[in-house]
């Protein structure tokens, strides 16, 4: 069995390759982080404010979640790094015993705050709480993330929308490389906290390749593929992902940022990604949209008022074990507990999907898994999204016609 530990001398992370798909680029690994081992491929639920949308940390643990996200921008604003540090880090503050990944805060700033300005120094923006001007530098981002005490920190990167073209894309990529160096130098806890680099370069194969060459020269414990899933064409998206995994070192984890739709997850695992995050499963749950192997089920829709089956009869989550579509439909008219039920189901769906993907890789039947998965998800093969068919074909998985 292939086993490689991280080449980083001090990084608190090891990646053990458990199995590799002989057909595609898919791989199953054990990612050992300070708080526990994370079996990959893994979906990481997003707990923006140090809480996961009405779910307690015990519930999240019971669902088998080994790593979740916190947002540096939000937590840095409220309650602030000083208090969180006093509370023994974000783990202590939210009472989460397993691993945490924090973003750099830069993405939120650019997407949430209108008046932000990027210079070589950092990202300048007006605080939404009080209006004073704040400068987020790579050093500041790492300082906050050091206070939060996350197991994986993300470098501050210069984010441009994936639909932007021209010299700004190259500028952002080159600056992200320089900022990576500043982040690495600023990390006060390299023996406890892993710092991931973020590959940028927009939708240009050339710029991506340059960024990959530069960043893989650095001794970082893991890599994220950034600047995607921001409204670009899916045809461009998968090519950028595939290019990245082609050039990333085999023995380090690859995190594809902001991706969480079931089809995207399965395809991008085939392309060689290990880690994913997305707010979609929890956000959509609050509107009554439950994720199922055949797509989604709108619990609030009238057609489920008298449907006494669980959301998914094959699902083993606490919601499906106890409640019917009809009851949840009725409860949605009365209490927020209805949202929590669907949130639990959706997180369970994501985690279960990734566990099944992993098992199929270990069993050497990942290509068949993908085919069956796609068959269940789409009523007929002519509904398969073209990009998914192409992406899978690029890694030697040809979907059946049905």
């Amino acid at each position, binding site marked *: 069995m292939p086993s490689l530990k991280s080449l980083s001398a001090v990084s608190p992370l090891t990646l053990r390759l458990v199995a590799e798909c002989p057909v595609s680029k898919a791989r199953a690994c054990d990612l050992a982080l300070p708080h526990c081992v994370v079996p990959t491929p893994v979906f990481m639920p997003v707990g923006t404010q140090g809480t996961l*949308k*009405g779910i*307690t940390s015990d519930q999240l643990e019971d669902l088998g979640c080994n790593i979740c996200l916190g947002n540096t921008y939000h937590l840095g604003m*409220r309650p602030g790094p000083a208090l969180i540090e006093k509370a023994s880090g974000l783990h202590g503050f939210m009472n989460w015993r397993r691993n945490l990944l924090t973003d750099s805060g830069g993405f939120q700033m650019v997407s949430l705050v209108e008046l932000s300005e990027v210079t070589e120094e950092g990202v300048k923006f007006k605080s939404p709480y009080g209006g004073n001007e704040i400068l987020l530098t790579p050093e500041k981002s790492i300082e906050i993330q050091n206070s939060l005490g996350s197991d994986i920190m993300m470098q501050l990167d210069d984010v441009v929308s994936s639909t932007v073209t021209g010299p700004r894309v190259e500028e952002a990529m080159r600056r992200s490389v320089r900022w990576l160096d500043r982040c690495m130098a600023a990390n006060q806890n390299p023996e406890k906290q892993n710092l991931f680099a973020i590959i940028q370069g927009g939708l240009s194969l050339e710029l991506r390749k340059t960024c990959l060459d530069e960043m893989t020269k650095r001794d970082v414990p893991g890599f994220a593929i950034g600047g995607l899933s921001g409204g670009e064409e899916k045809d461009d998206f998968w090519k950028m992902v595939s290019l990245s995994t082609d050039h990333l070192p085999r023995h380090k984890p690859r995190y594809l940022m902001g991706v969480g739709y079931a089809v995207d997850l399965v395809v991008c695992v085939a392309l060689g990604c290990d880690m994913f995050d997305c707010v979609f499963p929890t956000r959509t749950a609050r509107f009554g949209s439950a994720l199922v192997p055949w797509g989604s089920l709108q619990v609030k829709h009238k057609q489920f008022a008298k449907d006494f089956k669980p959301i998914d009869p094959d699902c083993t989550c606490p919601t499906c074990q106890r*409640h019917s579509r009809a009851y949840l439909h009725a409860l949605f008219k009365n209490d927020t507990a209805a*949202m929590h039920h669907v949130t639990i189901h959706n997180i369970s769906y994501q985690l279960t999907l990734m566990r099944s993907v992993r098992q199929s890789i270990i069993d050497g039947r990942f290509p068949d898994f993908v085919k069956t998965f796609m068959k269940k998800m789409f009523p007929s093969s002519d509904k398969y999204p073209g990009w998914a068919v192409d992406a899978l074909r690029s890694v030697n998985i040809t979907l059946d016609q049905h």
Partner: protein
Amino acid sequence: MKLELTRVVQGGYRVGVLREVGRAAHTSMEVPGCLLYTRCGAVPHLTHDTLRTLSPLPPVTQLTLSTVAEHREVLEEYKDGFKKFAGLHDTALYCSLHDPVTPYPAGHITNKTVSVWGSGGRIELTVARFMALQKALRPDLYQSMADGETWQGDATSRKRIRKSVDRTLAHLDECLLIHHQTPELQGAEVLGVVEGGDSLEERVRSAKETAKRPVGGFCLDGFQTGCMERSLRTRLIAAVARELPEDKPRLLQGVGRPDEVVACVEAGVDLFESFFPFQVTERGCALTFDLDLSPDTERAVLELGEEKEETWESEQSGEVLLEDQAQTMTPFEMDLKDTKYRDDLTPLVDGCGCYCCTNHQRAYLHHLLVTNELLAGVLLMLHNTAQYNSFFRALREALANDKLEFFKKRVLSRKRVGHKEAKE
């Protein structure tokens, strides 16, 4: 259903156990006690996972018709009753008419109908429709249909009060008739509703007449917090209690504040709805009872007896009529939105064994509240429900051991001896 009383103070409180609650032959609950408040079968904010971290839970769950009336067709098609429909496997189910938390507009009652308000608006119920709902819900016990509007008007006429008593008795007779002809409801108990507004004469008449009917117990309606002066209410409740048979439970609707609960227990009430912890949760507050009733504290409290007495009395007389109880903080809670809790890394209540207090700190709750996170409601509901249940448990103990006066001074007084909040 059997009420076994172990202690009865003449003209006052009762302590005991209510056994074989309706059809739930194995369910028993200690009185005085509270039910488990739900909306559509769910304790607000909680799923089964989070709810089961609370133990013991009140063994009887309250369901309000206003949250389920619009689903009548669904439940009729389901056929197995509401408990199974809602995944409530191990509880007795009590069904009442209105949600005690949600105000509803007056003026929609006729001789033959009452109305409830669900998410889709008003639903008018005749006795036949009311009973069809009960048949579909299959509760273990339920409140009979009642004209309970008298407490809402400012100056309800004597005539209107008399009418509400008459109508409520007529509804009860009709309900009982259908009840006995409905196989699905065999073994379930009907609670007769005592009305009568603020009229002693009508209250006594309503109690006497209801007691003549084959009911399992009594609902005391029209005493909701804010609808009349507290002293008048306790006098009327005591008068009603005198007319009711000793061996049947009395449930008081719309009263949840701890100090009011104790006063009404003293007047002879056995059961309360437990919407109060929910109201506290909705205003972002946490209950902070000090339930240490050990002999040491008893000595300390009794030494400071005079002062405490005063506080308790002044609180009773300084009441606000028709206060907006959904907004107004009571002396039994802390406002976690207050910035003084921003950096407070202690549990909500020292020694509270609830999930929230064993896992989280005040600063985290403060953060969840200021960021409007859903988990705030979950954690506060867990804590407040646990505290409220503990309050009732301690009250029962105090009653059983003849320590009510000590309990009142210790738990209800604003200036609580040795209590953290009092030092601030």
